[in-house]
């Protein structure tokens, strides 16, 4: 028993990843490979998001409750960068909106300038108010014009029409910008102010995305985003893909009579094209994740990483050594949020649609936090395994809940209203389930599955 425990202690990483891989393989053999790859891809995206949060929380102890907002900014960037511009809307309202936005920027800049020059605060308020009203006047005019252009399909400015991969970088930069302004205001004050401010900004980002139709069509969603991998239909019609599939399945095809072979082959091609596309995505996501983890681990082992951990473990001592804590925290907060933004962009690219209503604090902010805490805060690989475990549980907890209700209903009479009630509501218990996992791990295993290495230096 003691020996077994030792093996677990020394090989935690390998063992936990192997178990996860086994479970996924099991699902693959029992259900379908497309399903498993779907789960794996979302796990990978969640892992990138969790990595960003882990950098903030594990490296610096910064509590970000606005993950949803930063992920949504990444999603917005995908639309704004990769969609083709709506020429008619740009011609009608492009200049007007530009003018309105410029006026807004001028207003803010004047306010900041006057504040820095220590002008009377009532004068500043008056200037900003007038600027706001003028901006708002031009702005509502411009949005009306844009939203009138073909509202059923467009009604927005569209994007820049640049390759979608570029939008991932932009997503990171936009999220970084938002994080910088939030961090600038709240870092250096009480630790929970950052939490409250991030909570607020993420809700407001969502309000803006849902209400400003001219930007990303609001709740009307943007569908048919361009993708970095081939489309299934194109694959099915291409020769090389058909040849490859017939080569892979040649042994099972030979067993069939000639008449059925063509039919069977076309079915294999259809199935394989879905799997192939998902595999392409997996490859992309794994590359990005691995690159980020390598960079993050390198950074953590560098003098910079030691400084960061010194600040986290004892702020007073670190600041006595002349380290600028606020600047360091701001830096880490921006880097972490940028990674979350990239992951948000990846998610929207993978889904192919931008759906603002899908951004729920539970699905984004909270689930990612559970991943980080369960995986082991401070350990990058921990975030990855945490992401895989929690996303898998999250996906499976729906069917598990229904199954549990059915088991219970066996003990009750037929058609009982209680069973119907429970079936319709059981998915809300997912919240309770995830919340309980978080609280239990925090209490009984605060270091998580893969604890941070060399904590005691």
């Amino acid at each position, binding site marked *: 028993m003691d020996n077994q425990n030792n093996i677990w202690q020394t090989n935690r990483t390998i063992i936990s990843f192997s178990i996860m891989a086994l479970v996924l393989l099991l699902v693959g053999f029992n259900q379908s490979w497309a399903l498993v790859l779907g789960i794996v891809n979302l796990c990978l995206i969640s892992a990138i998001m969790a990595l960003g949060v882990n950098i903030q929380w594990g490296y610096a102890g910064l509590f970000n409750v606005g993950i949803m907002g930063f992920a949504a900014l990444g999603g917005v960037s995908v639309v704004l960068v990769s969609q083709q511009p709506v020429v008619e809307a740009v011609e009608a309202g492009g200049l007007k909106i530009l003018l309105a936005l410029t006026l807004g920027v001028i207003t803010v800049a004047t306010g900041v300038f006057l504040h820095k020059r220590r002008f009377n605060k009532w004068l500043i308020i008056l200037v900003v108010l007038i600027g706001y009203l003028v901006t708002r006047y031009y702005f509502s005019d411009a949005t009306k014009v844009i939203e009138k252009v073909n509202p059923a399909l467009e009604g927005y400015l569209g994007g820049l029409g640049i390759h979608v991969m570029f939008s991932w970088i932009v997503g990171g930069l936009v999220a970084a910008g938002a994080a910088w302004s939030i961090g600038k205001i709240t870092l250096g*004050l009480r630790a929970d102010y950052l939490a409250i401010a991030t909570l607020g900004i993420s809700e407001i980002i969502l309000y803006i995305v849902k209400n400003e139709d001219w930007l990303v069509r609001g709740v009307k969603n943007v569908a048919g985003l361009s993708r970095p991998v081939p489309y299934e239909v194109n694959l099915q019609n291409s020769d090389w893909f058909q040849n490859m599939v017939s080569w892979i399945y040649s042994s099972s095809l030979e067993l069939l009579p000639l008449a059925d072979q063509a039919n069977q082959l076309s079915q294999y091609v259809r199935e394989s094209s879905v799997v192939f596309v998902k595999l392409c995505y997996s490859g992309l996501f794994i590359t990005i994740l691995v690159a980020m983890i390598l960079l993050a681990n390198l950074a953590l082992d560098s003098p910079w990483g030691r400084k960061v951990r010194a600040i986290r473990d004892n*702020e007073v001592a670190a600041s006595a050594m002349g380290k600028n804590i606020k600047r360091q925290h701001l830096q880490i907060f921006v880097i972490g949020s940028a990674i979350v933004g990239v992951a948000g962009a990846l998610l929207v690219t993978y889904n192919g649609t931008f759906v603002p209503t899908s951004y729920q604090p539970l699905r984004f902010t909270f689930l990612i936090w559970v991943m980080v805490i369960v995986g082991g805060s401070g350990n990058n690989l921990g975030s990855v395994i945490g992401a895989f475990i929690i996303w898998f549980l999250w996906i499976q907890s729906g069917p598990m809940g229904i199954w549990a209700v059915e088991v219970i209903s066996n003990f009750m009479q037929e058609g009982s209203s209680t069973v119907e009630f429970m079936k319709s509501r059981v998915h809300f218990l997912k919240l309770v389930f995830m919340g309980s996992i978080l609280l239990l791990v925090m209490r009984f295993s605060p270091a998580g599955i893969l604890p941070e290495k060399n904590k005691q230096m």
Partner: protein
Amino acid sequence: MSDSIDIINAFALMTNFVIIPAISYGSQLALGALAVTLVYSVLRFSNFAQGDSMAFGTMIVILLTGFMINQGWIISGIPTALLVIPIAIIGTAIYLLSMDRLVYKFYRTRVKPKTITFCIASIGVMFVTGGLVRFIIGPRPQTFADGERFIFSVREFKAFTGLEQGIALKTSQFLTITIAILLVAFVFYFLQKTKTGKAMRAYSDNEELALLSGINPDKVVQVTWLLVAALTTIAGALYGLDKGFSPQQYHLLLLPIFASVIVGGIGSPLGAIAGAFLISFSEVLLTYAYKKFLIYLLPLSMHPNSLVQLIGTEYKYAISFVILVIVLLIRPTGIFKGKVLHDYG
């Protein structure tokens, strides 16, 4: 409408659509903010579960109200919810106390508890509570107000005064304001005059000195949760009577409540109340359409064509956030100096 300047009608319009709603919303926020302040002062963390706890308390009120109406146990004219609030407070108190025992107590008894750990734990509690509420009562909005709807309605007011614009006072608004005043008075009396209240303040000011002088920390914490349960349930029930109940809406109330607490000065009960009214008045004043108001005050030639609304209602939660940001930038201590210094805990 007349083309002359009519100050009395303009004032009546303002009272009906801005002043009364803002006072009643502010009172509801103030009770919630007071609960956050109490948890903050005694247990030393920002309770993210406040909004969902309010939903939990309101859920009990709604279930009991339904039961009472089914049984026919109602007093005509009075909202049934009012009768069941005491039982709902007990239910909420049991829930909060068991959450304290199961979750927070463990971290409190550690050697050097970190504020942020409590915050994360309270977010866990927030989601558990939210899930329970949605499981038990469903995610849909619902109303549970019964009895007389108005103390006096617009029609009665117009008939009485002969003005063009009427003022209405809803029962829920009247109840909110009265109960809030009574409850706040009670909380302040309790904190200032009773022995337990003094012990709570002592514990809040300096934990170690308080322990040294023989104050029982468990009792202080329990009394705090009892007060929080009362404030939470009543705030939730009054908000629900006034604007209807929906779990998501209550969850989002967290934002204006936190803004009130910080704007007022975190840890200061008086500041929480002042902050709540500042937030509620800003929200109502900025989202109100001034068209009719200006028509009464301006000569015909200057009558506005548009709604003259400063900010769309869809952004009302953004207002509390912007106020929060401005306060953090200009005066991070809040109106009444709160405890905002960096804590190295």
